[in-house]
């Protein structure tokens, strides 16, 4: 399809976004075209602002508008628990549940030898430091439930156990709302390993 140059530039930028294909990019571009100048400026400014003000929290490594971030700066949270996650977006997902009141530590990745990511590439020293000086009693490892996430959890667990801290791993089990017969084999097996008394 033929587009004026400025429109095809916009489509070319939108198509780089995750989950956006050519068709969606075209739809978004035409939506922006039809929107008022004010609306378009708000969008453009929001994009610039996020790049201008966002920074990395020097305590937990998450991304935030301030340093320390809102969570690390909140003294009302539970100081004895620390939740270890791979990426900042995991923090947002857990916060959305509203069920966790402790602090976080973002590793900034996961052990993945095939991608050339080893222990030195993750924020593991920072984690050990925090456990040693912040009086943490429990470390909840919430890396993704896959091969790399498990390997990272085991590696960290072996490393910090000597610090006399309780180390737990988030449960792996069956997703809510599903039927047992449709669960994949590994999930089903892990749900037996992680069974609990009721």
């Amino acid at each position, binding site marked *: 399809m033929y587009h004026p140059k400025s429109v095809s530039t916009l489509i070319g930028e939108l198509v780089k976004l995750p989950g956006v294909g050519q068709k969606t990019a075209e739809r978004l571009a035409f939506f922006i075209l039809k929107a008022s100048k004010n609306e378009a400026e708000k969008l453009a400014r929001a994009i610039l602002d996020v790049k201008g003000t966002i920074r990395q929290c020097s305590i937990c490594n998450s991304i935030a508008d301030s340093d320390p971030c809102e969570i690390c700066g909140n003294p009302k949270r539970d100081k004895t628990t620390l939740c270890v996650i791979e990426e900042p977006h995991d923090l947002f997902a857990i916060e959305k549940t509203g069920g966790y009141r402790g602090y976080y530590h973002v590793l900034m990745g996961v*052990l993945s*030898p095939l991608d*050339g990511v080893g222990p030195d590439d993750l924020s593991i020293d920072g984690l050990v430091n925090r456990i040693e000086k912040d009086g943490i009693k429990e470390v909840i490892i919430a890396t993704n439930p896959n091969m*790399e996430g498990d*390997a990272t959890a*085991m590696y960290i667990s072996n490393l910090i156990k000597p610090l006399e801290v309780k180390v737990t791993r988030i449960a792996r089990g069956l997703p809510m709302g599903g039927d047992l017969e449709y669960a*994949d*084999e*590994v*999930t089903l097996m892990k749900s037996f390993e992680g069974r609990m008394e009721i």
Partner: protein
Amino acid sequence: MPLYHTAAVVLRRRNFGEADRIITFFTHDFGKIKCIAKGSRRFKSKLSGNLEPFTFLRIIYFGKENQNIYQINSCDIIRSFHKIGEDYKRLSICSYIVELIDTMFKEKDPNRELLGLLLSIFSLIEESSDVDTVLRIFEVRFLSLLGYKPALDVCVRCNRPVDRVIRFNLIKGGIICKNCFRNTRHEIEISRGALNFIKKSLTIDLSMMGRLKIPKGLEKGIREMLHSSLSIRIGKRLKSYELLISNHSRNS
């Protein structure tokens, strides 16, 4: 569009788009292939738990014959090898094995011997307490599969028996006698014990591999000799190997 049925090992996977993954398989019938697993990063997907690295499965996929990326229809686990991921060292070793295969094999070039070797090696790595030796055996067998089986019977220059081995020529991939030895960086020193280990690795039955041991003191020599032999054939640095070596120096 044709449907393909085969058995396969997951070599690697990478995220693609919003919730998809692209999986590289080594299949029994078609060699290395790439497939897209739609929606497989969602917890609800039936594919999600089944496509972890090293898993051995039966897969059904489809796509046009000359396509580069097929689409997975369904898969069933034959064996998961999930214990490999419970230990970083085992994961590092298997990642290196997978990177070797991914680098050295073109797509759609089936090799059933390799698949058999791979399954035996994964199973040993899950169980063995001496995973370094298992890796060395794999490297020897892999060289041989690529057509570079170490020549250990007679001197590769003069074809005469070698009574006292002094050198191994990395380019020719075989031993050199005292008379033919030249002072180049491709001819490295090698011990009698190391040669014996490599000889045994080449011939031992896959089910007996767990019994083979590297004699004390020879670990480093054998590791370096095999790595140099492979490096010459690969022609590039492998990320996973560098991490493996940095683990070594971390632990010693």
